[in-house]
């Protein structure tokens, strides 16, 4: 292993210990929701999104 690579690994480990992780952005928050709607910025990046809207108009026999 080169000294340069070793230094990079040490730096990465130190960053991980400090809790520094790559910013996953807002889209990751909604990754598990079914697609319903989304808002895109002018570059086409998803800046917000939400799950499906389900409407139910039940006949209430109670």
């Amino acid at each position: 292993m080169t000294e340069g690579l070793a230094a990079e690994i040490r730096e990465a480990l130190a960053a991980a210990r400090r809790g520094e992780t790559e910013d996953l952005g807002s889209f990751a928050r909604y990754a598990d929701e079914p697609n319903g709607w989304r808002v895109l910025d002018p570059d086409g990046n998803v800046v917000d999104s939400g799950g499906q809207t389900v409407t139910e108009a039940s006949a209430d026999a109670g």
Partner: protein
Amino acid sequence: MAAIDQALVSILLNGLTPTGAAGIPGTAIGTPVGTTAMKLRLNTTLSTASAFGTEIVNGTGYAAGGFTSLGQSTASSSGSAVGVPLTTQSATATSAWSIASFDLTGNAAQRGFWGPFNAQPIAVGIGNTFQITGGSGAAAGIQISLT
């Protein structure tokens, strides 16, 4: 949550029960939302069971009355939900939008189903694009059912 206009509720109930003269089915269901392509209207306030929400102002890809060209949704069978729209709908805000609800209407603004968007109100800044996911059946962004 009820999500169908009350006038349409009465049309459906009367058409499927013996509320007509001498016990015949009542008012024929007919075509209460017309026979031409339906629209999907976006509102900045919540719709209710008896009234539209306040429609958003026009943007690029959205004109008063709602999205058109929704596409032909997969028909319900055995009571399954209908997904709307088939084709993804997109509109870009030319003034800031706060989107709360939708109304699914006939071409001449006859109200049918309505509903609040998941996680509303949705902020759409100037230049940003709001989309409703299109798809067949369960893949569509809005699912409409009676059960």
